[in-house]
């Protein structure tokens, strides 16, 4: 049910060649968990194994880094943690973000990424919405532990350093408009390198509801006794 509702975000914790995520306590069954893993090393930070129930939606190994997007639907007996295995043990920054209302049958519509070379502008690609309620996520990886300013008109959901010189920012946009969102640019104070990505997620259909059409005027309305 739109709009997509942000529930919680937790930081991923790296241990050598594994990244562990803690399931937020506020999630409910059928919520969507998105794991975002980013690193400066596009070879060693690729995901080689993930627990049952997870799927890889996108992986962008580029010159200046890599961003990987994994997805899972929360189940009744949701594990408390999830551990993802990488090729090796590069410095990684990662986060687990939970949303409610995403379409489970069509997890991600599209995603692309751009390598950023020594720039203060991290330009996340434009996405084209075909349904007004789709969720735009901007993902920014900077290979330095510096603050990132999210684009105006967006809502920042995560912005933190990882192990080693690295930082990950996640921001969301609910445009409520069909068509292109335009690029969304995060900025840093001094030129840095990294990766800027964006992904578009489908949201559950807007429900058609029923109304009350009076057959004769004068129904009993809200009452104080009973329902």
């Amino acid at each position, binding site marked *: 049910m739109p*709009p997509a509702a942000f529930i919680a975000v937790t930081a991923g914790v790296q241990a050598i060649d594994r990244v562990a995520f*803690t*399931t937020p306590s506020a999630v409910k069954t059928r919520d969507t968990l998105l794991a975002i893993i980013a690193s400066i090393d596009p070879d060693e930070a690729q995901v080689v194994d993930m627990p049952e129930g997870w799927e890889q939606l996108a992986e962008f190994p580029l010159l200046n880094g890599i961003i990987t997007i994994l997805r899972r639907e929360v189940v009744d007996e949701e594990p*408390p943690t999830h551990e993802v295995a990488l090729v090796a043990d590069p410095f990684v920054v990662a986060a687990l973000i939970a949303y409610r209302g995403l379409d489970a049958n069509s997890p991600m519509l599209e995603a692309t990424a751009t390598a950023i070379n020594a720039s203060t502008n991290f330009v996340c690609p434009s996405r084209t919405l075909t349904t007004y309620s789709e969720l735009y996520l901007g993902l920014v990886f900077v290979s330095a532990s510096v603050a990132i300013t999210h684009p105006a008109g967006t809502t920042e959901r995560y912005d933190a350093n990882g192990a080693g010189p690295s930082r990950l920012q996640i921001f969301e946009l609910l445009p409520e408009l069909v068509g292109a969102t335009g690029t969304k640019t995060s900025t840093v104070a001094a030129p840095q390198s990294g990766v800027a990505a964006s992904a578009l997620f489908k949201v559950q259909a807007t*429900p058609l509801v029923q109304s009350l059409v009076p057959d*004769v005027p*004068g*129904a009993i309305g809200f009452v104080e006794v009973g329902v």
Partner: protein
Amino acid sequence: MAARKTLVHLRFDEPHTDVPPSDAAGSLVDLTDGTGALPPVVEAFTGFGRDFLGEEYSLEAKDAVAGSSLTTRDCTIDVLLAWDMAAQLDFAATGTIVTRGIDGSAAEYSAYALELRVVDLAQRIAELRFAWQTTAGVDKVQAGGHFIVPADGFLMLTATRRWISSTEVELQYYVGDRLIGDVLSSDGDIGGGTTGTLRVGHGSPGGTYLLAVIDELRVRNYHVTQEEVEATWKRLSKFQPRGYKAVRDLFQPDAPISNDPASRFQKLLRIAGHAVGYTAAQAENVKLNLLPDRAYGPSLEQWESILGEAPRDLDGTARRRRRCVAHFSQREGVSPPGVRSTVHELLALAKTQIQLLAFDNTVREDFSQGLRGERWRATPAAQWTINAGALRVQNAADIPLTSAKADWYTALTAADCDGRASQMIAKLVPTTLAAGAEVGVVFFDWAQWSVLLFGLKNDAGTYKLVTEAFVAHASQGVTVRHTFVGLPAAVWLHLRQIDPGGGGGGFKTSATDANYTAAWSTTSQTTGYTTSAPFSHRARFQWAGMYARTTAGAANIDVAIDDIVLRTPFAGRTSHWYAYRDPALPGSPDLVAAWGAIQRLKHAFTRASAITTKSFLAGVSLVGRTPHGALT
């Protein structure tokens, strides 16, 4: 818990426009116009309503008693209205249904507001959303729920707010009985004052004039459940119309009665028919929602009263229901599957995620988890350390051999019984044991100061195994059990009460003697023992452990102690069990209810609890029960 009540109920059933609307709940004085004219009275779903279309209408009123319409925590707002989306968008996208607090001062900060927003007119998509202001007057417009608005008719809109903490607020939105939004907000700082104004149709933090016909508006100070919303919707949409039809169908099709809805006869049929429908709806509600898994409101409170469950202010309905249901989920009793079935929902776990911990009467200690304070009472603490995975005792000064000053070094654990038939094994690895120094195992009756020592002693250069007993501080003499040739690399000491004395069981007093043996091995923990002849000493003791003492100076004791086994057959450990919930697991457990359910399940004269740690201090209440030492 705060009493559930309706704060505001505007029926808008005035027969004439100029009659000021009144609040059926009595919280407000009569409403007045905010813009110079009262919204016109028009026919609506429940009879009459107020038409906010056409001009910038609003209604407002102060509390009849200051604060009577105020809630800064839980609330539910329901409204029946017919909305003109096109007119709304033409004026402004977002209309205010109601707001309590119209901004401008702390007293007028909005404590709750409900807004309708046009998202996409062509697709007839709208958003229903909460809004409020913080205690500093900052607008907090909340995420809402989207829905497609039907072409005509009245909408039943319900918005519930459940305040959990200053950073967690749960919001749910319904249209009819359809849940359209389930949102978690971090805006738990909610303002508003007792002298604030309630306004209908205009003035919320994110909205302006509402273009709609409002039939009824109600504000309650609690959050309603989905069952209650569904029941109300069914009454309005199904049962009342069916009741009217049922009464009408009593007449023959060609009966000479007016079919004009405005006729008196039809109105009489409506009264009777809707009364029938209302009754049927209440019966249906009872049928569906009487049992505690779906009960709400007074029904749930009755269940809690019957079952002895007292809800706390912040308990949500789901948690209260689970507590009640747990009283019935005891089909398999205190078996492991039965315990899991009863408490798993209360602990917010799958059955397989619950660890059931139970114990025999043997305590094993390898010090791999350090010297845990909840198990060992080590004094002086600085002299007992962990080194290379074992306990290490070193002396800092003389520790007189006599008991007069009672300042031996000791590391003791509770035997959890009176000591009958108990036995203890410990491994000693001496590094330094200078002349006059002694280290070993001890059984200690602290109340009577009756002590049995069994240790390795350096007696003027000769290493001996000795026992010494004290009764009421008075030594009963030292007995040499064995003499070593040189300092042994390691020795296992085994002190054991072989029989309680006096021919068997029964309560042993401090003056009752029992028979003991002292055994030792330099081979291993399980083989190569040599056992002394039985000797007598007081039967009762409550503490067991290790000791160190010396007649000589400092730095003449350095002994490692490891692989402790203490068996106390008459201890209460086997009567303890615990349902352990790993705190790392997600979810919001109800430990209070889980503990209560376990108390109902467990056998008499046993101890059990729901826990989230496997290590706790003796004397610390586990939701009302006291544990005995570490569980591993």
